[in-house]
């Protein structure tokens, strides 16, 4: 998968996780929602790990490695 389509998937699954996270904060007893959250959180982690390996570090502060050279500085940055 290309950078862009992986980022798109990360954005979509990430959004599900974010929205479910907020819901669960005020509905902590909702077991079905928690099960969904955990499922999508697993998917998100796998997608991010793939991105970090194939496209370069998505995350900093030790959450991704920079294998052959320091890639974190690379453009484009998200606002570009």
């Amino acid at each position, binding site marked *: 998968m290309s950078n862009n389509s992986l980022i798109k998937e990360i954005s979509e699954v990430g959004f599900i996780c*974010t929205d479910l996270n907020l819901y669960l*904060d005020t509905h902590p007893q909702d077991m079905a929602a928690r099960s969904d959250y955990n499922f999508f959180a697993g998917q998100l982690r796998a997608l991010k790990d793939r991105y970090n390996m194939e496209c370069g570090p998505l995350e900093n502060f030790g959450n991704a490695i920079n294998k052959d050279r320091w890639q974190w500085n690379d453009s484009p940055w998200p*606002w570009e």
Partner: protein
Amino acid sequence: MWIYEKRLIYPVNIEKPNIYMAKLLLAQYGGPNSELSAGVNYLNQRYSMPNDVVKAILTDIGTEELAHWEMLGTMIRQCLRGASMQEIKQSGLSEWYVSHRCGTFPSSQSGEPWTAAYTGCTGDPVADLTNDLAAEQQARATYEGLIRVSDDPTVTDPLEFLREREIVHFQRFGEALDIVQSDLKSNDNRNCN
């Protein structure tokens, strides 16, 4: 603490320069109902909340607001991209240019610098959550103003996403307020510091 993900929380792909909108988008970058106000407001209030639900929701929504603030900065920069000096002068951005060139600066669309006065924290959970409910509606209304004025669908699209998130946040804060109020009824813990 916060870590950073090198992506926008929602895509921004503004097709052509739009200096007119760049100026107006400052409303949500550094104005009273901006994402910056929301983020700082919630992340600050959470320290004096007595209930875990509220600490969590203020932390999480506050974090999301910072990601939205990043979107606004991005939108302003993309709207200014490639602007000529003539376009800048004709769009009434000369005063801005002198102080900031094509940089961003947290202020309202009419030039008032952002201030903590746009946030509030009484330390009382009911007052603060009520303030937050109002803040979300004000942000929603401001987004509607921007959407109505926008003449560019690539600008309007992220604005509509941001508007919808304000509605969801309003819902969550309502739930948090209910939880705090039923907690107060059952515990009578009016000795919170």
